[in-house]
């Protein structure tokens, strides 16, 4: 019991810490403003360090089709990030859900001898052979969000934390209703069978178990507005009284909210997922059942652009001691509430 309690305390502590970290990362976004701590002793150049214009870097970028608010934001954020750096030239092979075409886009980047490739593959496994080819051609590949199945296919990998989303959401629900032992917790998942959905649900169940709660009702939607509406309507029919709902995805959340509105119910709190701007505005206004959301950063490809630039210019992450850019970065899934929403709203995506 005390073990699980201490784990929760630890988790909250790391949550607060990461919130602080990501804040400084946000404010330091523009290359002109570089509030780097003077005491930091790193192997990188002093002063403006990493943000100072260096040699010209040509980056090829490819992502799936923007058929979903989060995915649309991925490409927009990457383009916006590249535009901040005068030394970055971004080639965008825009959105496709056809792996055959995405492979061909990467081949074009290889032919063009770009300096680095940032890719969010439609299917990590299917894009692995061509990523290997790029790496063999001496072009560093930054893998975003959906992992390749070979460690040789990418120099660096940036991933969101699906399991952590579940943990964060579960921890928040525990904080809110930890004392109510018979509380009814419901879950509206995304596409079931996807590994990411399994990870999210497992994390959620794990965190709930720590305070003696469990998921009483679980339904799955499909990341679409329509799917969210249907799943939530069914859920509300099935459970006459609910204390908390976690909805995995804010894009489908538009439909979920509609279903809740139609039912006229408000006896529960709802936690969102992924962190869209409209959900954050709802949290800010405190006018609906949505009291929090957990972030799955839509800026991870933008991070990829930055990492690619550093890699090519031979720089490292200035806030780490290491000489090289890390091999793998797992982003944190912070809980956004009314108290800290101002920090996260600027980087949230519009669904």
């Amino acid at each position, binding site marked *: 019991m005390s073990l699980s309690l201490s784990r929760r305390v630890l988790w909250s502590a790391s949550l607060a810490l990461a919130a602080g970290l990501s804040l400084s990362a946000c404010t330091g976004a523009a290359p002109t403003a570089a509030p780097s701590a003077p005491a930091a002793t790193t192997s990188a150049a002093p002063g403006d360090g990493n943000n100072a214009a260096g040699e010209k870097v040509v980056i090829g970028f490819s992502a799936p*089709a923007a058929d979903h608010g989060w995915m649309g934001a991925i490409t927009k954020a990457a383009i916006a990030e590249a535009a901040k750096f005068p030394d970055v030239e971004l*080639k*965008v*092979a*825009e*959105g*496709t*859900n*056809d*792996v*055959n*075409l995405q*492979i*061909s*886009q990467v*081949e*074009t980047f*290889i*032919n*063009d001898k770009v300096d680095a490739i940032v890719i969010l593959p*439609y*299917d*990590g*496994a*299917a*894009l*692995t*052979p061509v990523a290997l080819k790029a790496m063999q051609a001496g072009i560093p590949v930054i893998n975003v969000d959906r992992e390749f*199945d070979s460690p040789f296919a990418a120099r660096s990998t940036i991933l969101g934390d699906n399991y952590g989303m579940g943990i964060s959401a579960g921890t928040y629900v525990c904080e809110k209703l930890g004392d109510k032992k018979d509380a009814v917790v419901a879950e509206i998942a995304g*596409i079931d*069978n*996807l*590994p990411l959905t399994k990870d999210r649900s497992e994390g959620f169940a794990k965190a709930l178990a720590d305070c003696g709660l469990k998921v009483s009702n679980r339904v799955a939607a499909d990341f679409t507005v329509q799917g969210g509406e249907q799943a939530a309507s069914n859920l509300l029919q099935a459970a006459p009284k609910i204390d908390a709902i976690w909805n995995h995805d804010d894009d489908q959340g538009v439909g979920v909210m509609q279903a809740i509105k139609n039912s006229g119910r408000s006896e529960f709190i709802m936690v969102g997922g992924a962190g869209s701007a409209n959900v954050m505005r709802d949290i800010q206004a405190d006018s609906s059942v949505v009291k929090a959301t957990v972030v799955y950063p839509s800026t991870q490809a933008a991070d990829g652009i930055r990492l690619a630039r550093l890699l090519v210019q031979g720089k490292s992450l200035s806030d780490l001691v290491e000489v090289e850019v890390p091999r793998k970065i797992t982003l944190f899934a912070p809980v956004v509430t009314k108290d800290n929403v101002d920090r996260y709203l600027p980087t949230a995506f519009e669904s």
Partner: protein
Amino acid sequence: MSAQAPAVPATSRRRLPPSVTRNLGLVIAFLVICLIGYLTAGARFASIDNTMTILRLAAIIGVVSIGQCFVITSGGIDLSVGSMLGLATVWATTGATQYYADSTTWLLMVFVALAVGVVGGILNGVMVAYGKIVPFMATLALLVAAKGLAEWIANRQTQIIKVRGFEQFFSNDPLGIPVLVWIFALVAAGGWVLYNRTTFGRRTIAIGGNVEATRLAGIKTDRHIVMLYALSGLTVGIAAVMMMGRTMAGTSTHGSLYEMDAIAAVVVGGTLLRGGRGTIFGTVIGVLIFTTLTNIFTQNNLPLSVQQIAKGAIIIAAVLLQQYIASRKTA
């Protein structure tokens, strides 16, 4: 860029004079697109590497389109090709298939993919020929069912190919040309011969022109229709193997919406959607027009959305041209 055009024009010119002008127009359109590519992207576009990139992109959809060309010529349509391709890649990469392939030969995976394609095609053909179901509906049913079956088998996951022999075969490029492009060339050449030089091809055209008259002429049209859809299924199986070679993975999302790409390429190539007339050479050029266009857009950093608008415009232009030619013929 014109290197991949099989030795078609000279022979088809002698046989089918009206199709010459149509194919010629198509070739000119294609060359204009290449010229645009060269003018906007320069030597990068014309390089051997880029040519191979275009051909690799064209290869899979090209093979599917060859099969589709036969079906459309007969007055039918095969909407199931995309999800059948996905199903074939899934079935050929299951743990069990890979296990047996590993202990015998990687060709087993090829055989499974081809078998899935052909069986699916026969199913389509039987529904159309003997069940008297409209091709659009029969193949639509298989589109939906095959997608579901593929998701069910793979549990919506991507199956990674670990069979060494398979990997090695597809990493070859004999004479500097990737295996995928060789397969495309062979299928295109085989398709051309079958279409233009055999009774099978002539019967296909006859059925598309007038199925009743063909039946009365003593040809077993039902059996022929089944064979046509089986042929389309075979090309789907071949394309599935190529997709597996390109991605080293099998998943139900492979080939999604390829039916639309294939139909577009066939129609733009000059095959009549109502049947009775078609061209394999035109189909190949049709595929190349679309893939080259895609490549030019990527080269010039232009959004795919704009390209889809351009694609739509090309399809409309091609259909209008077809109608114009048809009306001039009847007038």
